[in-house]
């Protein structure tokens, strides 16, 4: 025994927890795919994400003591916290806020896409990653538009993934 459990940093613990969670999710996806094929698996995957993300974001809201989000600054602050908690470094995304009411996200590689490639279904996979974010926003009652509107996987068609969210906060 060479390392004490208590010496694990918060980030180390968060990383392993998030990795295990995504592995758990991927194992469900894989087993479902074997049983039903990609069409039904996409449908079930997205239903599970919608249900889970709605609960998840409320828990995060409670954990960080966030209240009703009324301004874009409040949204940015909360979104940063949610992303810090619910994602890991292995997800390799980045996002910027180039202007008021605008958020741009980019993936040069995507763990979900890599997984789908390994399963041989990348060409028919329907993205569940952005659905998680969309569900957060809907649950929080935040009005938004997102471009591009995608059902498949942009990483597969374009070689990289890019999203732009536009919000409608007055302040």
């Amino acid at each position, binding site marked *: *025994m*060479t*390392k*004490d*459990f208590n010496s*694990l940093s*918060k980030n*180390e*613990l*968060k990383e*392993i*927890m*998030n*990795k*295990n*969670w995504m*592995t*758990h*999710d991927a*194992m*469900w996806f894989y*087993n*479902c795919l074997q*049983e*039903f094929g990609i069409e*039904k698996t996409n449908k*079930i995957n997205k*239903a*599970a*994400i919608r*249900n*889970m993300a709605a*609960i*998840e974001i409320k*828990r*995060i809201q409670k*954990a*960080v003591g966030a209240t009703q989000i009324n301004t874009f*600054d409040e949204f*940015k*602050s909360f979104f*940063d*916290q949610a992303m*810090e*908690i*619910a994602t890991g470094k292995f997800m390799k995304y980045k996002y*910027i*806020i180039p202007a008021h009411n605008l958020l741009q996200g980019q993936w040069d590689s995507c763990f979900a896409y890599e997984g789908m490639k390994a399963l041989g279904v990348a060409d028919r996979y329907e993205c569940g990653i952005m659905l998680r974010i969309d569900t957060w926003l809907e649950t929080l009652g935040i009005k938004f538009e997102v471009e591009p509107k995608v059902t498949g996987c942009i990483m597969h068609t374009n070689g990289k993934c890019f999203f732009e969210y536009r919000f409608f906060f007055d302040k």
Partner: protein
Amino acid sequence: MEHQQLKNMTRGIQKNIPIDKLRELVAKSRWTCDSNWMMAMVMNAGWNVANKMNLQVAQSVGKVEMHRLMKILNLDKPKNENEFMTLVSLAMETFITQDYFDYEFKMNGSGKGVGIIKQCYAYTKVKSINVDKDYECGCFGLRHGWYQAMGLHVKENLVKCLKNGADQCEIEVAAVAFPPKDIS
């Protein structure tokens, strides 16, 4: 405020979230995700397929997560009861939601032991929607995956079960075969 400033500020706020609370939050989200997959599978394929799949998923994930835990803590495969108990306990304390789970685990010094579960999140959940008779416990798959990662063959025997009306689950753990001691 610039975005980077805002990010730095929120990271500062996050430091105030205790590590236990953060762990609990992510663990709960994982098991919520799991239960949503499970119920989606039940709706689409029925209990037999969903139960079978749940065990397979749990076993695969259990193996991976135990490997990760051993790696991050620089731990070797257990060579004796103490190390075995430590690893099982570490996994329980790390990966399972503490708010919904109450358990203890005892070894008797001869490779046998018993796990006692007084409160189980899966049972609580399936009972709450009145499907506890249909659900087959997935925790056996999860632990089987842990044992595989430890390189151990472990036999478990369910003695008492909450699902059968008992006040707690009791799982006998037997035949933990550790590698022979190096006497060279």
